[in-house]
C-alpha cells in the first residue's frame, strides 16, 4: 500500500493556499479578456481593465488578488488504497492552512460566530472529502470570500416548479444580489440530491474552468439560457451597470427524492481562485 506522510500534505496545502491567492487561473484571465471586448459600459470596461491589471500585479508581486483571501475550502479525493502516516489528515490540512496564511501574508478571516473574535490562523478549513479508487490524494483548494458566499442560498422547490421554477429562482436571486457579490460572477447551481448535497453540488460546480462546457447537453442548454437572462439584467461589473454581470453559469445535478426538488445557488466573485495538486 502506498504511503504519504502528513508533513507532505501540510506543505502542499500551505503552498496551494498561497498560489491560489496570488495567481488567477488562465481560464479567468481569458474570461476577463472576452468580457472587456463584450462590455458596452465605459465604466464597466474600466473596471474590467483594472481587474486585468490587478491580476498581473498580484502575480508579479506575489500578493493576494483580493484582500479577502477567504475561508479555505479544500476538496479532497482520497484514494482508498492510500495510507496516510505520521499523523491525522484533518490536523495536517489545518496546519497547512495555518502555515500558508501566515507565510503568504494572507488575511485570516475565520472568527467566532457570536463574539466575532478572530481565530487568528484562518482555521478550521472546510474539507469535503470523497473516497475514490486508487492510491493518490487529490487536493483542490478554493478560497472563498465572504461577500459572494453571503449571496448564496438553498431552496427546496416543489417538483411541479420544474426547470421554469429553477430558472426564475436563479435569475431573481442574482438580480437581488446586484453588485454585492462583486460581479462579474460565476453562478454555481446545484440541483437535486438533498438539502446539503445540493449546496455542495453548487460549490463543486464552481471548480469547473470557465469556458469549459457542461458535458450534459440539457444542462449545457440551461446554463446558456440562464447566462443570457442574467446578463440582460444590466447589473454589470461591480453592479455599476453593464452587459457582463456573470462570466458563466455552472450547473451540477443529481437525482433527488420523488417529493423534492432541492436547488442551491452559490455565487463566486470574479476572484475565482482554485488550485490543485495530486500526491
Amino acid at each position, binding site marked *: 500500500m502506498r504511503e504519504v506522510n502528513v508533513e507532505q500534505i501540510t506543505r502542499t496545502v500551505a503552498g496551494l493556499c498561497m498560489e491560489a491567492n496570488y495567481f488567477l487561473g488562465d481560464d479567468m484571465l481569458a474570461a476577463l479578456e472576452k468580457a472587456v471586448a463584450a462590455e*458596452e*459600459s*465605459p*465604466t*464597466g470596461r*474600466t*473596471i474590467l481593465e*483594472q*481587474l486585468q*491589471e*490587478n*491580476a498581473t*500585479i*498580484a502575480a508579479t*508581486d*506575489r*500578493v*493576494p*488578488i*483580493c*484582500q*479577502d*483571501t477567504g475561508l479555505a475550502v479544500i476538496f479532497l479525493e482520497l484514494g482508498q488504497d492510500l495510507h496516510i502516516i505520521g499523523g491525522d489528515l484533518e490536523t495536517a490540512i489545518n496546519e497547512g492552512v495555518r502555515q500558508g496564511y501566515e507565510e503568504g*501574508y*494572507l*488575511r485570516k478571516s475565520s472568527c467566532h460566530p457570536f463574539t466575532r473574535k*478572530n481565530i487568528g490562523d484562518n482555521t478550521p478549513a472546510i474539507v469535503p472529502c470523497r473516497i475514490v479508487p486508487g492510491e493518490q490524494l487529490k487536493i483542490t483548494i478554493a478560497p472563498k*470570500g465572504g*461577500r459572494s458566499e453571503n449571496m448564496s442560498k438553498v431552496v427546496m422547490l416543489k417538483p411541479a416548479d420544474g426547470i421554469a421554477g429553477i430558472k426564475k429562482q436563479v435569475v431573481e436571486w442574482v438580480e437581488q444580489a*446586484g*453588485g*454585492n457579490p*462583486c460581479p462579474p460572477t460565476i453562478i454555481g447551481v446545484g440541483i437535486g440530491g438533498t438539502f446539503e448535497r445540493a449546496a455542495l453540488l453548487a460549490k463543486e460546480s464552481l471548480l469547473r474552468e470557465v469556458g469549459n462546457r457542461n458535458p450534459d447537453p440539457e444542462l449545457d442548454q440551461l446554463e446558456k439560457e440562464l447566462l443570457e437572462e442574467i446578463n*440582460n*439584467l*444590466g*447589473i*454589470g461589473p*461591480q*453592479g*455599476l*451597470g*453593464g*452587459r457582463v454581470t456573470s462570466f458563466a453559469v455552472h450547473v451540477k445535478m443529481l437525482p433527488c427524492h420523488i417529493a423534492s426538488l432541492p436547488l442551491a445557488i452559490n455565487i463566486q*466573485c*470574479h*476572484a475565482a481562485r482554485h488550485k490543485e495538486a495530486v500526491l
Partner: protein
Amino acid sequence: MENIIRLQPPLKDEQIKVLKTGDQVLISGTIYTGRDAAHKRLVDLLDKGEKLPIPLDGQVIYFVGPAPAKPGNAIGSAGPTTSYRMDPYSPRLLAEGLKGMIGKGGRSPEVKAAIKKYHGIYFAAVGGAGALLAQRIKKAEIVAYEDLGPEAIRRLEVEDFPVVVVNDIYGNDLYEQGVAAYRRN
C-alpha cells in the same frame, strides 16, 4: 476614454459640486481608513463631545480592512469593503465635515440624503482589485485604534487612486442608473 478628474483632499464644496455620477476620479494625497468598528468609536466620541483622533473637515474615508503587508510593502492587498455597514454612522460624520467616502455597494436613503444636505460624495473603488489598489497606496500609518487590527484607522498617502463617483450631491445613484441603462427585457 472619458475625462479623468484629479482630486487632492481636503475637498471643498466647489470641487464636490462639479462631480457627477459616473465620473472617473484619481485621488492623490492623504486619506483615512475606517470600517464599522472604527466608525462606531468615532461617533461615540462625537456623542460625548470629545476630540476625534483624525480630522474630518474635507477629508475622505476609505472603507477597507487590508491584508497584512509583506516586508518592503506599505500595505497588503487593500480593496474596498461593503459600505452598507457604515450607513448608520456616515450621516453623522458628513454633518461634522467629512466630504468623501470610498467603498463598494449601495448606500441607505439616509446616507444619500446626508450626501445632498452636507455636500458629500460617495465613490466606489473596484472590489477585488486589492493588489492594484495597494500599489497606489504609498504610505500607511496606524493613527488610531490599533487594537482593531485590520480595522484600525490608518492614514494613507495615495497616488492616482482610481475611483468612480456613485452618489453625487444631485441625488444621482450609479447603482440604480447604470443598471437601468444596460438592462434588456
